[in-house]
Structures are given as C-alpha cells and as structure tokens.
C-alpha cells in the first residue's frame, strides 16, 4: 500500500472564507495618535491590518505587506518608519498581543528619535478596521493526502487563506490545517509536515502561496 492510499480517520473538509470589514470608529492623524490607539485597539484590528490585505483585491506585489507601513509611507511620508514596520513578520510572534507590543515598540523608538511628530493630511487619516470572518463549506472532501496534490491548485484564494493563515489562529499549536490533518496519520507524513512548516506565508500573495503548496505536494507525492 502506498502512502497515497492510507485511509484517514476523517476526510479533509475544504472550506472557503471571506472577511467582512467593520469600522472601529478610531482614526489617527499623527503617529502619536496611532500609537495611543494601538495600545487599546481590538486585537482583531491588528490582525486585519496585518493579514487582511491578502484577501483584498490587489494587483502585483504590494509595496508593504501591512497597512500600518503603507500609511506611514504614504500618509505620514516617513519612509524610515515604513521600512521598519514593513519588515515585521506576524508569524514571528506567538500571538497578536506580542505583535502589538512589537509594533508599539518600533513606533515609540521612532517617536523618541524624531523632533516632530509626523502628521497626515485630514483626508489621509489611518482608519482602524477589524473584520468578521465568514466561513463557507465548499462541500468538497479529500479522503487521501495524495489527493491534496490535485485539489490545492483548484482551491480558491479564500480556501488557501482559511486553511493556511486563519488556521494558525484557530490551532493551539499555530499550525495550518493541512499539517494538522496529516498529523492524524500517525507519523506517516512527518517529512511533508516539516516541509510545510518552512513556508512563510506572509510576504507572498495567496496565489503564490497556492503555487508553493501545489508544488510541494506534487513533488512529495510524485517522488514517493
């Protein structure tokens, strides 16, 4: 029997998702206001401004991967700070609270070293948004791990977001759904799980992430 045909306990349920944005009513016009709001803002808002961009319409690679850095560059015209915040990778942090602290630290450091607090024009304020995630069942089920190699290229970007990125928030070990499911096969896919763990989903688009996953699964199962 090949690895491809190991019978799972439960089939993999393919889901899809979308984010519905909600205004928090909080705005910042300068860096200090941004910092002050960040201390208390709903954790969902920090999540949204770091990850939500992946599901928003975009063309090509974004200049910055999080909304804070983008505003620092285009609203405050502070390229130095934009670069420092733009490099923050949320997957490096245990949870949103750790990420929040890091973001505030970087901003406070910048406030300490600049003589004037940078301001944005009135119509370029930073609007704190959070979101609700709506999860759909695609009615697709995958019985065998080997079938993921053909299923992943056909998944929507919403499915990729749900199973790889949203999963990190849902799972206590902060791992993606594919790895969680493969672990149920009692060590049979350890190498594959290890390789999945090396993918950093943050600085790529969901389409690129889907391509990386497709390639990884294809290579793994074709190489068996």
């Amino acid at each position, binding site marked *: 029997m090949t690895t491809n045909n190991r019978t799972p306990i439960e089939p993999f349920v393919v889901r*899809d998702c*979308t984010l*519905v*944005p*909600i*205004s928090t*009513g*909080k705005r910042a016009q300068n860096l200090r206001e941004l910092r002050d709001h960040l201390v208390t803002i709903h954790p*969902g808002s920090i999540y949204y401004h770091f990850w939500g961009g992946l599901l928003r*319409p*975009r*063309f*090509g690679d974004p200049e910055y991967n999080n909304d804070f850095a983008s505003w620092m560059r285009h609203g405050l015209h502070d390229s130095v700070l934009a670069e420092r915040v733009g490099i923050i990778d949320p997957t490096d942090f245990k949870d949103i609270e750790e990420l929040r602290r890091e973001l505030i630290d970087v901003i406070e450091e910048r406030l300490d070293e600049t003589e004037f607090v940078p301001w944005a024009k009135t*119509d370029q304020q930073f*609007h704190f*948004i959070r979101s*609700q*995630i*709506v*999860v*759909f*069942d*695609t*009615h697709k089920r995958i019985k065998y791990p080997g079938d993921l190699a053909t299923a992943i290229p056909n998944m*929507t970007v919403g499915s990729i977001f749900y199973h790889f990125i949203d999963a990190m928030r849902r799972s206590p070990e902060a791992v993606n759904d594919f790895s969680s499911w493969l672990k149920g096969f009692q060590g049979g896919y350890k190498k594959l799980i290890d390789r999945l763990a090396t993918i950093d989903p943050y600085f790529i688009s969901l389409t690129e992430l889907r391509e990386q996953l497709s390639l990884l699964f294809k290579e793994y199962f074709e190489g068996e």
Partner: protein
Amino acid sequence: MYQGILEQYANVAGEDVIDHLRQVAESLKGMKVVHINSTRDGGGVAEILNRLVPLMQELNIDASWQVILGNADFFQCTKGFHNALQGRDVGITDSQIRVYEETNATNAEILKAQLEEADVVFVHDPQPVAMIKHFPKRKGKWIWRCHIDLSKPYRPIWKYIRDFVTGYDASIFSLSEFAQALPHPVYLIPPSIDPLSEKNIELDYEEINSVYERFNLDPERPVLLQVSRFDRFKDPLGVIHAYKLAKAFMPFQLVMAGGSATDDPEGDSVLEEVRKASSDDPDIHILLLPSDAHRTINALQRASDLILQKSIKEGFGLTVTEAMWKAKPVIGGDVGGIKLQIFDHNTGFLVHTPEGAALRIRYLFHHRDKMQEMGMKAKQFVKENFLLTRHLREYLTLIVALINNVDERIELS
C-alpha cells in the same frame, strides 16, 4: 428555457458565488426582512433594492420593500439633511423638523404591524431614520444603511440625526472614510452594480454601434467618455482641458453624457460653462440624457474606447464600476471610492490634474494592447468584488452576525 433569478446570476457571477449565498441564507429561511427607503424610482438605492429584494425572496427569505410617503416640505427638509450630512452648512427650520418628525410618525403608524413583526429592518438613508423612535418594543434588529459620505458632516444636523441612529443595532457605510463612530457595529459594505440591469446587461453589436449615428460620432476615431451630471465635483471643465491637451497629439472625440440635473441649482450654470468651453470644437459632444436612459448609457460605454471620471470629490463612483464591467480602462480622480477601484497600470489610472489625465489618455490611445489588457482586468475585478451578489452576501452575513450575536467568526455549512 425559463431561468430563475439565481440561475441568471450564477451565469454571470459563477456557481460558487450563488452557493455561498444559499449557505448564508440557509439559516435565515422564512425570516421577515423589510427594507425602507423614500423612493421606488430613480437613484442608486432604488436601483439596488429593485433587484436585491427579489433575490432575497428567491433565497426563501420573506423580504419586502416599503417606501415612505411624504409631501414636498418633507422632501425639502430631507434634501437639506442630505446636503448637510455631506458637509454643507444648511439651516433647517423648526417647522421643517416638525414636518420631518410628523411624516416619520405617520409612516411608522402605516407600517406598524409589519415593522413590529419584522426580524430585520434595513432603513436606508436619513429620510426614514426617525421611525425607530416609534418602535420601542420592536423585536427585530434595526440596521441603518447610510449611502452618503458622512466624513465631514455639518455638525448641528448630524447631532440631530445621530440621536436616532444610536438606537439602531448596527449601521452600514460604503467606505471607512465615510463612517462616523457609533455605539454599535459599523459595517463597511461598498455598493454594487447589477450585471443584469438595463445599464449593465450585454448588448448586441448593432445596438452598441447605433450610438455612432444617433449622436453623430465618427466610428473611425477613438471615443473618450465621461458619464456624470454637470456638477463641479465631476470637474467637467477639467475634462475638456485634459481633452484639449491630449488632442494636440492625436485625433479623438470626447463625449460628456449626463442628466439635466433639475434638482441641482448649479447644474444649469455649470452646463453653460461647459458649452462655452466646448463650442469651438465639433469633436466635443455634450449629451443631455433623460434619467432613465440606462440602455443608451450602456451602449455609449460599450462603444467608447476609454472612460474618464475626473471627479475632484466623489462618493463611491459607480459609473467607474459600470465602465469597468464593460471591460474599459478608466482614468479617474484620486478621490472617494474611485481609489478602491482603479489600480494604476492595472484597471486604469488615478490622476489629480487635467494634465495628468491628458498624459494617461495619450498613453492609452498609443498602447491599444495595454488598453485591452487593462479592460479585461477591470472586468474581472468588478466580477470578483462589486457585483450585487457580493453586496447581498454581505447583507446576509451581517444579519447572521447580528441575530447570533457573533463577534468574529461565522461558520456556515
């Protein structure tokens, strides 16, 4: 063969989109949902409700649409509210306020039985917003849908309206920039276009081409089109300036198509200025079309090569969405909702000046292949983001979230 409404939308938006709608609607079966606004004809809100309500019904939701009644004084007052909420310093008299409140009270009485029983009530814009005060024992969730730009309201009027709005369970704005802080969830749901309406439906080749003869256009030379009212915020003189700058380098025609703007006191003087600025050029075509000339606008957009929306202040800018749906790249002002739709070098270009617009017009007319590529991207972009089906899905998920008191996660199956 007869096709249900959902099947017709599935043909345009895709099966998976309709499947998502069915999933969200599953838990709302039989629910009484009432939409209230102040007009059945004309205007974007009525246009959307005309299609949205039958779609909800098709999903087995007991949806209905009620229009409040009012006299001329009432609408004069609400027109004042509308302008004030968009930032104009407008004086509203005590007697106007009295008419406004009495009209809301009368309509609340007429709709009493239905609204008391409703599970969800969507109240659109400020005209019926005060009705909520007459339903202290309402059992359903009340949602205020604000279609206008509330970013810098005239404060005395906003304070008055806000007193009613705070009683609602949620509100909806089109963009975060348009929203105000309120003591309930404020959803951000952009508007949408209906791909099956007269304004957006596919037209045959002959109908599209008929506009050349009808409006005396030369089919051999490119056409640049701006569809909008003759309003200073749409910068019609800037459009002519941009056209003249670009025309120095290549021959093309400009069409400016808009309504007669009878409710806008400035409309006539702006139109006069536009006519004066264009009188020396037979290639500038100023078209005054009736407000229901949807099919004509549709054909003009499809017959044009390039679309301009050079606004200096804009709401969401659905004319941009409509043009993009017809696979046309758009050059638009970097304001309001246009910024959410135009991505430089992808679906069009954002500009700040007539010079900027002229530069992009020249570029696109010289790169026809690029124009086609951008048009296709624009159409796909609208398909994925700004069709009525997405709009409805977000309304339905909002209902699910409110009814179930969900904070972050809605799981459907």
